[in-house]
């Protein structure tokens, strides 16, 4: 049972012909019954395919990794298409087809909570254009004006005559029509499918174990590789003794790749992993092998008072205002390296021959994976293809194609043989582009009435762009470092109005690769800003909410108020419980959180509840947003409680969940979410609320204990009374 498609403008041939790979060829099978019949299915445009039996296949260019973008985008297309949601299924177009068809599906990259907020307009247009073509085809058949016809639930109706026809019946004729030049999109207030708490399209497979992730991919003749790269970033492979393991039963080949890694290819993963563990390997770590954690800490500390720094946001003269203030408040915070820890470790399957290279993998950026395939294979893009698989988590980790490159290089050593490369959890944990580590020194000046007259925020630490995309630095500056602190723009703008403000960054880049980690720099910048806001409020003798409300711009203030109201902020709490607040604007959405926390006399901290508010402009699926908010708190609280990657002799010390703990069920707070969409913009929801988790909890802890935690993770802090 398979689908063999050629993504031509018009017709697809769907058949039951067996092709190696089956479902895993990158397309979700439109026919779930697996019947071995062929049928003409019609592509109306890049986004909409209609089958004779009315089944609607919606093409999704972005990658689904649990954030629900697949369902949300499909809702938007279906809304405009006026199809029956029960008939909707989906498929991924391939990155190679996107290149061949002049990027008809535009951007495949899935990060920055961009899926819906960036592509909503063109996917809705795709749905609307297909609808118009279907109506036009029916009208032509009936010889009536198209304006007298309408579509609803996959049926076209001619009102005055009462004639009706299903989409599937007119799809062939519709596909031959020219698409309309312009279509009018619906007002979100008229939505019937979008805006509703519809269940995800990919749930059934995930509760039956039938969902195929990259790591599950298989095809005839496939071998499996285990890989080990230099434990120290930048280190080189010096030597290895393949003879020691080559004769082990099931081992097929030992290969060196990129001068910095070695892989064992075997019949099964367990054989490959066992042989790799037994393989003698020598490394040359170079000077990075001498780097210790305290060196990184010292490097960042030095930047806190360094004279040179990139200026990200400046209003008035902060230094003069602070010097002249009645009261001066200073605090230094730090945020450690974090690992994404997707539940599915990195993996990719590659099949290489001299004239073709194919890859099957989960990726957040299909086109980057395709480019990496082409580069590693040494073949032009036209001879390469990537078939996207379901992701067992992404969180930014799978936006990078380092693992794709490795898989291709391994497969290149065995032309014609498909090889699935799987990283062990240990390999995954120690070879990542980590959430950058930074420190932050904040200095605020209050006048005699407790008004904030000047604020200097000095960030010191690592730049993601310097690590991954140095070409995107602006005169050496990394604008992304200032996420949440930006002066203007649609992304992550600073919400407080401070008459004299300076936010600057002393870039200090340790040797670990830094990268995008769900929420990115909004995370630590919000910890710094929102905890310090509480410190300022305390110094001013004011309530943290009231102190913020005086300084916040309207949309920020509205969301914070919504969260505070829903949480009952200011009203009596059960004995021993305390509220902490935080707010930020990230990824185009305004968010706030109120944590309800207790700390026992023995120092046991518990987060009982977090109440969140989100203004994402429009709401495409409220149920999925609520899940993203709750999930984002698990991500943010895991980092706050336990998350910390440290370095010894240049290598990452944490290797698995026993040394890199994460939050489990017993620590999960109740999460309540208020959706307060104010309309007129499209904000992302996969990331922003992560950032308010840690500071709202830290602010509540300070209220409960009088202790101000300024360095994460919390597991290092004794919260016991008197300690």
């Amino acid at each position: 049972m398979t689908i063999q498609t050629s993504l031509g403008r018009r017709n697809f041939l769907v058949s039951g012909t067996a092709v190696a790979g089956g479902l895993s060829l990158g397309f979700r099978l439109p026919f779930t019954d697996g019947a071995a019949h062929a049928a003409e299915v019609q592509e109306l445009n890049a986004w909409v395919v209609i089958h004779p039996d009315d089944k609607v296949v919606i093409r999704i260019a972005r990658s689904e990794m649990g954030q629900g973008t697949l369902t949300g985008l499909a809702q938007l297309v279906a809304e405009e298409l006026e199809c029956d949601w029960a008939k909707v299924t989906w498929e991924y177009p391939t990155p190679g087809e996107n290149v061949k068809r002049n990027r008809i599906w535009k951007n495949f990259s899935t990060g920055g909570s961009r899926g819906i907020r960036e592509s909503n307009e063109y996917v809705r247009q795709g749905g609307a254009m297909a609808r118009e073509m279907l109506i036009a085809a029916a009208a032509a058949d009936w010889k009536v004006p198209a304006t007298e016809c309408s579509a609803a639930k996959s049926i076209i109706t001619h009102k005055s005559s009462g004639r009706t026809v299903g989409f599937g019946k007119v799809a062939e004729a519709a596909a031959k029509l020219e698409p309309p030049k312009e279509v009018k999109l619906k007002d979100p207030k008229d939505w019937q499918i979008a805006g509703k708490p519809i269940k995800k399209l990919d749930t059934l497979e995930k509760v039956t174990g039938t969902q195929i992730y990259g790591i599950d991919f298989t095809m005839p003749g496939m071998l499996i590789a285990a890989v080990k790269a230099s434990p120290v970033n930048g280190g080189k492979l010096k030597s290895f003794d393949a003879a020691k393991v080559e004769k082990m039963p099931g081992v097929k080949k030992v290969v060196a790749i990129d001068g910095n890694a070695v892989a064992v290819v075997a019949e099964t993963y367990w054989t490959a992993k066992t042989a790799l563990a037994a393989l003698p390997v020598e490394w040359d770590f170079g000077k990075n092998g001498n780097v210790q954690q305290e060196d990184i800490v010292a490097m960042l500390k030095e930047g806190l008072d360094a004279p040179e720094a990139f200026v990200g946001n400046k209003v008035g003269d902060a230094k003069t205002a602070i010097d002249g203030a009645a009261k001066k408040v200073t605090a230094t915070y730090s945020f450690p390296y974090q690992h994404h820890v997707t539940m599915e470790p990195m993996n990719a399957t590659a099949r290489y021959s001299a004239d073709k290279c194919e890859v099957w993998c989960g990726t957040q950026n299909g086109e980057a994976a395709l480019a990496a395939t082409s580069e590693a294979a040494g073949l032009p893009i036209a001879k390469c293809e990537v078939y996207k698989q379901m992701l067992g988590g992404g969180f930014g980790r799978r936006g990078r194609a380092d693992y794709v490159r490795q898989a291709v290089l391994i497969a290149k050593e065995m032309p014609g043989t498909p090889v699935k490369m799987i990283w062990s959890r240990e390999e995954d944990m120690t070879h990542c582009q980590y959430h950058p580590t930074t420190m932050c020194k904040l200095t605020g000046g209050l006048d005699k009435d407790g008004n904030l007259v000047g604020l200097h925020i000095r960030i010191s630490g690592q730049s993601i762009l310097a690590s991954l995309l140095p070409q995107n630095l602006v005169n050496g500056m990394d604008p992304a470092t200032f996420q949440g602190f930006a002066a203007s723009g649609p992304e992550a703008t600073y919400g407080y109005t401070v008459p004299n403000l300076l936010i600057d960054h002393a870039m200090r880049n340790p040797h670990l690769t830094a990268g995008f980690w769900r929420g990115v720099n909004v995370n630590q910048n919000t910890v710094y800003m929102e905890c310090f806001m509480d410190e300022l409020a305390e110094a001013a003798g004011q309530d943290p909410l009231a102190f913020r409300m005086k300084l916040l711009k309207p949309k920020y203030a509205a969301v914070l108020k919504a969260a505070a109201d829903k949480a009952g902020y200011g009203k009596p709490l059960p004995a021993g419980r305390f509220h902490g607040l935080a707010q930020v604007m990230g990824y185009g959405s305004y968010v706030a959180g109120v944590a309800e926390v207790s700390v026992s006399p023995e120092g046991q901290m518990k987060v009982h509840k977090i109440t969140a508010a989100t203004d994402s402009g429009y709401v495409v699926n409220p149920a999925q947003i609520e899940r993203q908010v709750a999930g984002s708190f698990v991500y943010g609280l895991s980092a706050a409680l336990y998350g910390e990657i440290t370095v010894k002799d240049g290598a990452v010390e944490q290797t698995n969940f026993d040394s890199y703990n994460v939050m489990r069920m017993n620590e999960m707070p109740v999460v309540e979410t208020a959706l307060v969409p104010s309309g007129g913009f499209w904000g992302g929801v996969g990331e922003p609320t992560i950032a308010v988790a840690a500071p709202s909890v830290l602010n509540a802890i300070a209220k409960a204990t009088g202790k101000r935690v300024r360095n994460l993770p919390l597991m290092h802090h004794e919260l016991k009374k008197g300690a």
Partner: protein
Amino acid sequence: MAVLNINGKSVNATVDPRTPLLWVLRDTLGMTGTKYGCGIAQCGACTVLIDGMATRSCQVAINSVGNRKITTIEGLSVDGKLNKIQAAWVEHDVPQCGYCQSGMIMAATALLAAKPNPTDADIDAAMTNICRCGTYQQVREAIHTAAKA
């Protein structure tokens, strides 16, 4: 060659006797519903039932299994019909990325067999599986729903 009792069927597997059950299921038998997450019994993604007990299959050598009954996620639905736990998972639309959910459902299966009406504290104690997407709240709700079903 090991003879295993999986989902009520007798299955032969020719593998090194020290191979963990997880990799026999995945690589030898092609049953990929059971997931690899950590390999050290920490995360629970590989949870299966052995004689009804939730067990992390990455730490079970195949030569230690004998003729005990193994149940995997593939063995829960009968004739394509979801069991009550899977149905509750669908009702609460639990999975996000879904990678941990086979293990979650297997752990919940063992919990509900032992305690048909678990309290939140029972759920906290039994459900130690890791979910990085953060579906814990929906997992909890789904277990309560399944208990009532």
